[in-house]
């Protein structure tokens, strides 16, 4: 469904040239949930933006559903984008529009007639169980609810692909589970190919079919999540191994009992 061929994205020029994405080739199966994981600055968000050309690659080709997006005119690209939904870490909802108006806006951009918009927006809101919040403004909703509204907004045009840029990084752990559950259900019931960028391995473990590990702009390895069930499986790269362990290991110094006692005494 999604194919990236030798995609490279650089920012700046001359001395300040920075390569965010380095020669990435990637194939994402239709109907799958594909994770992209890496540390901050690994280039994973840029790579995701390369898929809908929110960030146009410096070189390489991007195909979505057989169409080469990198070869399209601006107008044709806009049309293709109606088939590619996207959600963001900070939701990016319009504060001065209600939940329903936010969802309807996507249909308006897609040229859907007014009569149809209302009905379809409410339908999308009911998929994320927020039909009752249709007339609420984002400011009146919790972070999890805002993300669900943004999911409804992305889904309302019935896209083939859903791009998720750190969708759970701004919400608490319980909300994370709920947001992921919706994404998983939607993937299962509607068959939307989902790409999810995150720095949290537990998100990947919970939802993804396959994961690409990024480091310094390159995809350094890729594996199916089912392989984690095999006890002998081990990622090839150190970063891959580090990420799947996902435990926080500190080098804790022994407590200095005397100092502690002294401090307590002083208090």
């Amino acid at each position: 469904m999604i194919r990236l061929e030798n995609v490279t994205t650089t920012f700046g020029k001359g001395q300040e040239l920075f390569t965010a994405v380095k020669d990435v080739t990637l194939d994402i199966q239709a109907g799958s949930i594909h994770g992209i994981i890496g540390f901050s600055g690994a280039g994973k968000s840029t790579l995701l933006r390369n898929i809908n050309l929110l960030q146009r690659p410096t070189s390489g080709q991007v195909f979505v559903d057989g169409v080469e997006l990198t070869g399209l005119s601006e107008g044709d690209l806009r049309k293709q984008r109606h088939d590619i939904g996207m959600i963001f870490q900070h939701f990016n909802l319009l504060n001065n529009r209600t939940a329903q108006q936010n969802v309807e806006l996507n249909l308006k951009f897609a040229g859907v007639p007014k009569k149809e918009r209302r009905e379809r927006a409410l339908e999308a809101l009911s998929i994320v169980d927020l039909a009752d919040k249709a007339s609420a403004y984002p400011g009146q909703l919790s972070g999890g609810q805002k993300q669900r509204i943004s999911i409804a907004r992305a889904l309302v045009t019935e896209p083939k692909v859903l791009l998720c840029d750190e969708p759970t990084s701004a919400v608490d752990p319980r909300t994370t589970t709920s947001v992921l559950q919706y994404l998983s259900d939607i993937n299962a019931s509607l068959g939307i190919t989902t790409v999810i960028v995150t720095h949290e391995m537990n998100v990947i473990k919970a939802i993804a079919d396959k994961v690409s590990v990024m480091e310094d702009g390159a995809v350094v390895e890729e594996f199916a999540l089912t392989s984690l069930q095999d006890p002998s499986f081990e990622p090839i790269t150190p970063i891959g191994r580090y990420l799947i362990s996902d435990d926080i290991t500190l080098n804790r110094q022994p407590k200095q009992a005397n100092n502690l006692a002294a401090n307590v005494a002083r208090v």
Partner: protein
Amino acid sequence: MNFTSVVLATSNGSAAAFSLDRIIELAPEIWVAMAQTFAMLLVAIPIAILLGTPLGIWLYSMSPNGLRPRPKLHRVVDGLVNTIRSFPFLILLIAIIPFTRFVVGTTIGTAAVIVPLTINAIPYFARFVEQNISQLGNGVVEAAQAMGATRGQIIREVLLVEAKPALLSSITIMTVSFISYSAMAGLVGGGGIGDFAIRYGYYRYETGVMLLAIVLMILLVHAVQFIGTRLSRAADKR
């Protein structure tokens, strides 16, 4: 004239100031002055909004981080806006007299002062628009781009909607500023309540009449601010 005589004269004027008769006598003139002030604002401010908004959007769009960056052209127009903005209003009023004559056919009276007021207000408001829009951040623009919105749709359906509360506040600030600018209209016989205060209070030492005019201006400013704040707050759904 020495300082003492000014003070004396002023206090003499003050003595007459509280005579209601004088104020009743001048009432028709005060009404005319108020009407002139309203006329200036009601023409200059809407035109400034009508023309300043696209100019502000344009400045935002063509800026290096805008929707359609055109850095060189942006620099030229940006400089032009700064130039007009840096003219003291009194000087602008005189400097564009030929243009004023071309537009309204006269260089004196209320109509003549509306032209420089408007010329001053357009870049003034354009800056507000530019700033209010750029402060929205890139998030909503990116979301709209990802949804396949055109530049026009992003401006109309996203930026102007999100900036509306800030724009209403800006219109309020502009209106208050221009009540003050309109006081200089007297220089070209433009009238208005500010000019009235200067003529009677400042030139003729009728302190009481001046105070009344100033109170009227204060009330006008308060009313504008009150309405503006209300509208802005009602539009703000954050």
